[in-house]
């Protein structure tokens, strides 16, 4: 039987890790939920967000939390470009996305991920870098909580909460939800579909790149062009677990994955098997709860 204090400590770290997982998957969740399109290059934009935070730290001395708004602003711009470059041609004038369009968006964003990942490899080199920022830990009973991770968790929950409020309480948010439910009906209500889809994609990209900045807190020496390939599948699993388009679903999915990844090793499960289990969670969810575990 595993040591109880150890499990408590792993559970805490798992919850904090789950929060950062949730925020990096959140942008994908919004885009997927609204436009029904999956951005295969999602991981590469997390990676670019992380490098954004790294360079802001290197040249301007920003800590990762300060770079979050800067990354988010860059992400908004990138998201508009992405929408008009990759999605507009497939979504324009359609009431539902066809299987052909779905395949085109999957494949074209897959090409984009190859381009970005390998261009980053050529420009930034494969050597991992990191941001020196360690605000220390504080103790809750026997558990040492890392302060950096704690701040990140707060920011992620706030981001997810604000996005939920935005979608349910504002006019623009309601329009986005209307678009995601029925494009034809939302047009009859005077909603411009292109504008709504572009805005939702841009917001999603802003959150994705901000998520990359937050992730750097967890990667003190691990920012490399390869993190895209690591965190993209994790994001896909989180969004499916929570259900695409459900804002709090990111948090549920992220926490589930964070707890699995941090608590299984305490019971002497090897790290490889832990990762495999975390990924395989997707299959039963798809089989038995297609809309995600959150009702």
């Amino acid at each position, binding site marked *: 039987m595993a040591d109880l204090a150890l499990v408590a400590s792993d559970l805490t770290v798992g919850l904090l890790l789950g929060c950062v997982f949730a925020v990096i998957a959140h942008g994908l969740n919004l885009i997927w939920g609204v436009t029904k399109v999956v951005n295969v290059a999602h991981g590469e934009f997390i990676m670019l967000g992380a490098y954004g935070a790294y360079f802001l730290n290197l040249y301007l001395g920003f800590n990762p939390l300060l770079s979050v708004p800067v990354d988010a602003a860059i992400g908004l711009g990138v998201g508009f470009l992405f929408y008009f470059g990759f999605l507009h041609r497939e979504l324009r004038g359609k009431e539902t996305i066809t*299987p052909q369009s779905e395949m085109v968006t999957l*494949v074209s964003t897959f*090409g984009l991920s190859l381009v970005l*990942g*390998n261009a980053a490899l050529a420009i930034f080199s494969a050597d991992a870098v990191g941001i020196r920022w360690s605000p220390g830990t504080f103790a809750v009973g026997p558990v040492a909580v890392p302060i950096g991770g704690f701040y990140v968790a707060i920011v992620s929950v706030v981001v997810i909460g604000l996005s939920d409020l935005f979608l349910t309480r504002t006019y623009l948010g309601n329009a986005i939800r209307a678009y995601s439910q029925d494009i034809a009906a939302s047009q009859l209500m005077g909603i411009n579909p292109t504008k709504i889809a572009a805005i939702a994609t841009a917001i999603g990209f802003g959150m994705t790149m901000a998520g990359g900045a937050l992730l750097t807190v967890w990667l003190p020496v691990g920012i490399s062009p390869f993190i895209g390939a690591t965190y993209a599948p994790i994001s*896909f699993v989180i969004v499916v677990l929570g259900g695409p388009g459900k804002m709090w679903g990111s948090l549920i999915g992220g926490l589930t994955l964070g707890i699995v990844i941090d608590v299984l090793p305490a019971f002497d499960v090897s790290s*490889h098997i832990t*990762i*495999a289990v975390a990924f395989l969670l997707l299959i039963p969810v798809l089989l038995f709860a297609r809309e995600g575990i959150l009702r």
Partner: protein
Amino acid sequence: MRIPRIRIPAFGPTLYALALLMAALGVATPFLPILVKVNLINFLIFVGLAYAINFITGLTGYVSFGHALFMGVGAYALGAGIDRLGISPLLGVALGAVLGTIVAVGIGLVTLRFRGVYFAISSLVLFLAARNIVPEISELGGSVGILLNIGFQPLAQFYTIWSIVVIEIGVTYWVTHGRLGYGLRAIKGDEDAAKAVGIDAARLKLVLFSLSGLFAGATGAVNAWSQSGVFPDTGFDILYSLRMLAMIIIGGAGTLLGPLLGAIIVYVPYNYFLTVPSLLGLQLAVIGLLVMFMALFLPAGIVGTIRRFLPTFGRYIE
């Protein structure tokens, strides 16, 4: 009511050209220098992979990001077969094909229920899970892998992969020109409508997915044979998944000639850039650009585009 038999059209020029090319390769290779032989083996491995993924992604439109899983299964079947059971490499390839088929049927029964993006993501996730589980199995060499001491047999390797490609081309032709082909085109167009007119979509997809697993497994086994060993990193290599997909997108998904053209376009820079380390990453970036461009502007690939814009010439290409 009896369903009328669908007439299979006469053999087309594309098939003749492919048969001629393969026959020429088969006759000429024993007389070629050793370096060219090795290059041809590696090239035909790419061709074999392209035709393998063409069965599922090309013909049914189900995008698989995790097809290197079947390569890994085939590679480990060959490695474990030779090292533990003492079988010959050729039997190892056959074992790889059988295990590839079995794994494909098992996975297909579950994941082919998921449509579109859900299938794509579950294929990626299953690949990653297998990639993490296999190094934990000490019977399969753990994180070290299995080093095979079987010597260098370029001609045997060449004729094995050559036969695999020949069979793949034949099966692709048979599948696209028979009744299966009509059902597949219907599924690719609209799966619900296809079901409504009485096409057993689930069975058809499973047949195609297991064919895909069979050939990917066999090709993966030849790949391990040519590398004289199987290791977790090269047995389950996500780059092969990505290249497979890139090859059929560029060449033309679901066509007879497309996978070969795509394999040429992906293999040549791969082989050239291998000798220039600083450009290693750049070749995939260039291929990515090409995939992006094709998907956005010419989604039918090279073959489909020729058929569309050069109808007189395109009639002879499929």
